């Protein structure tokens, strides 16, 4: 049996995380520093999907550096995260991207993506800078240097719906609510496709203004449709929190499904364990035993979760592990390339049809939806709240779903003007 890429990744990054108390520090020569750019919303209402990612990267990098750094080619590097708050605004993102590339000399830039990406795209191409997004809807044939190597939002949402349909076959009427932005709308199209594929009728879709503060009317409106399933789409963390409270207050007792459920203990506290029982979403806590499966490409997730919560208690969200997992992938690619230069690292990553995604081996994919195979798509966890605690129920298979329902998804995406050729 040969050494797999997972073994390699685990051996490199994993030994670093284990720390010097477990594995002797390697006697490297003089170390250099490589800077990694972090360009995401650190303030404002989308910051829940930026700031916790920065925290996660800092925890990861601290452990890696404490264990001696990483050896790439003939050099040993310590890692440094250079961050910039794009406030989820295109012009701020461009300002940040330029600063990170020109002044900080970063070797790749991690972004949340979404609204800020169009502001950055031209400069990113001109500077030939390797960049990553959590939102593959940013991808198009015009983004050759942009990868979505971790999160394939919103496509993985189909796994939650598939799980729901299989376990609750009597649930046939769904309502969807989503904020009107680049996170909400493609997710609506995805949920519509997933529900259609599962034989569930979407009886209402309410696309609301992100400035909404009182969700009572929205909930009243949607509950009037007598749904069996309430879908939060990719609503911001605060929105899920407030909408759940309203659902609870207005007596909803049906199924709930969402892309994320950040800070769910708060929601459990504000509503009840009974109300939140069976809530389906897509982002696990990292103390979940199912993350210790052999195909998981993230060294010691449980320890990472503990380290993170010790350093930043109460801030864990969907992205706390995603950006760090991208850092680990970059390390793996840089080692393979023997270089930290962006184009060589990109070539190493894209040089093979598949690559070790955090949830197992995954394929470079996306031509049909985004016109370019720059997203890693494979398995994705379906998470369910049981007795007030999020647990992984299963790993859904996105390519398998796609093989069966590709046409439905493309139709729904086109109906919502979310295909890459519709996004001018």
């Amino acid at each position, binding site marked *: 049996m040969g050494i797999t890429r997972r073994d390699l990744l685990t051996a490199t990054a994993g030994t670093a995380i284990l720390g010097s108390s477990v594995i002797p520090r390697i006697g490297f020569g003089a170390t250099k520093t490589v800077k990694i750019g972090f360009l995401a919303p650190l303030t404002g209402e989308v910051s829940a999907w930026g700031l916790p990612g920065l925290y996660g990267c800092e925890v990861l990098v601290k452990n890696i550096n404490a264990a001696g750094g990483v050896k790439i080619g003939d050099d040993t590097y310590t890692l440094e995260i250079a961050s910039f708050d794009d406030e989820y605004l295109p012009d701020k993102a461009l300002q940040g991207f330029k600063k990170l590339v020109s002044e900080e000399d970063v070797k790749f830039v991690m972004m949340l993506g979404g609204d800020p990406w169009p502001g950055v795209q031209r400069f990113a191409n001109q500077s030939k800078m390797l960049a990553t997004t959590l939102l593959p809807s940013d991808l198009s044939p015009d983004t050759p240097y942009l990868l979505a190597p971790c999160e394939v939002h919103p496509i993985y949402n189909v796994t939650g719906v598939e799980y729901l349909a299989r376990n609750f076959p009597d649930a046939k009427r769904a309502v969807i609510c989503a904020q009107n932005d680049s996170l909400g709308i493609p997710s609506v199209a995805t949920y519509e496709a997933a529900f259609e594929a599962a034989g569930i009728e979407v009886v209402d879709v309410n696309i609301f203004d992100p400035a909404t503060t*009182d969700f009572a*009317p929205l909930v*009243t409106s949607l509950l009037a449709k007598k749904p069996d399933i309430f879908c939060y789409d990719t609503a911001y963390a605060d929105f899920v929190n407030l909408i759940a409270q309203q659902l609870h207050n207005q007596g909803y007792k049906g199924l709930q499904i969402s892309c994320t459920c950040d800070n769910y203990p708060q929601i459990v*506290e504000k509503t009840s364990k009974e109300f939140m029982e069976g809530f389906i979403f897509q982002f696990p806590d990292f103390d979940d035993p199912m993350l210790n499966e052999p195909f998981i490409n993230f060294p010691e997730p449980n320890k990472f979760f503990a380290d993170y919560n010790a350093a930043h208690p109460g801030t864990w969200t969907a992205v706390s592990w995603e950006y760090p997992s991208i850092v680990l992938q970059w390390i793996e690619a840089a080692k393979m390339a023997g270089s930290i230069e962006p184009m060589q690292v990109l070539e190493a990553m894209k040089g093979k049809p598949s690559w070790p995604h955090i949830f197992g081996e995954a394929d470079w994919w996306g031509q049909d939806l985004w016109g370019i195979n720059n997203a890693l798509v494979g398995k994705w966890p379906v998470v369910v709240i049981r007795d007030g605690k999020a647990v992984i129920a299963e790993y859904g298979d996105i390519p398998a779903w796609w093989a069966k329902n590709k046409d439905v998804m493309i139709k729904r995406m086109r109906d919502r003007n979310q295909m890459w050729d519709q996004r001018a």
Partner: protein
Amino acid sequence: MDIILQTCVNALVASAFFALMAVGLVLIFGVMGIINFAHGELYMVGAYLVWYFYASQGWPFLAAVLAAFLIVTVIGLLMERTLFRPMRDNPLGGLINSIGLLFILQVLAVQVGGVGLMKNVPPAYRGSLDLLPGVSIGNQRLVALVIAAALLVCIWYFLTRTKVGWALRAVAQDRDAAALQGINIDRISMLAMGLGAGMAGVAGALIAPLTRVEPYMGHGVIITAFIVTIVGGIGSLSGAVLAAVLYAFFHTFVTTYWNGTVATMMGLLIMLVVLIVKPTGIMGTRVSE
């Protein structure tokens, strides 16, 4: 029928908050002639104080609301003394000062509470009251509604049944004539500012468990408050209350049956129409030069 009644309940709660905000704004404008752009941030400070005292320090919710009222009232008094009184003859200066304070309060909130996810303020009164089958109101909302309504009644009583209230209204009608009657304008201005600020603080405090508590939460609220005061008639307290109720019902029904974005757009449109057709608002009166 359920949905209509539930929407009425939702609108009733919204009415109370819109009225609290608008009446405070009108009091300040009526007496001092200053449009207080920082009014939304006073609401934000009230919410943050409840987060701090109730959610973080474990005070009883109502004690935290009282503390928020008192502290924001004091902030209002200080605003009057330091920002607005020196600008009494320069309304534009007062407006600019209030905009400056708006930013200062936002930055202070960021410094104190950070940014990111909303501050977690659990409801003090859990569960809900079933009014009819399919029609319910959350207990936290019910308590907030009762307190807000009681406060509005108290304000009405104070303004219409007490000498100080009469003095306040007299200053709002004609400052010079009121001064000739021996009314202390400085004191009345402080009272109006303190009361108006305190009401904004209470509104924020009561709604803290029901909304996003974050440094910029005052933005949307101040826009609504301006719509209500303009539609009601700038300077008219009864107009503000009436417009708050009408606007809340209109906005809530349009949101429920159509869309929240459309509701806000139509609200602004109504404000424009009122400004064109009846610039004095529903209950405002024309003042001749």
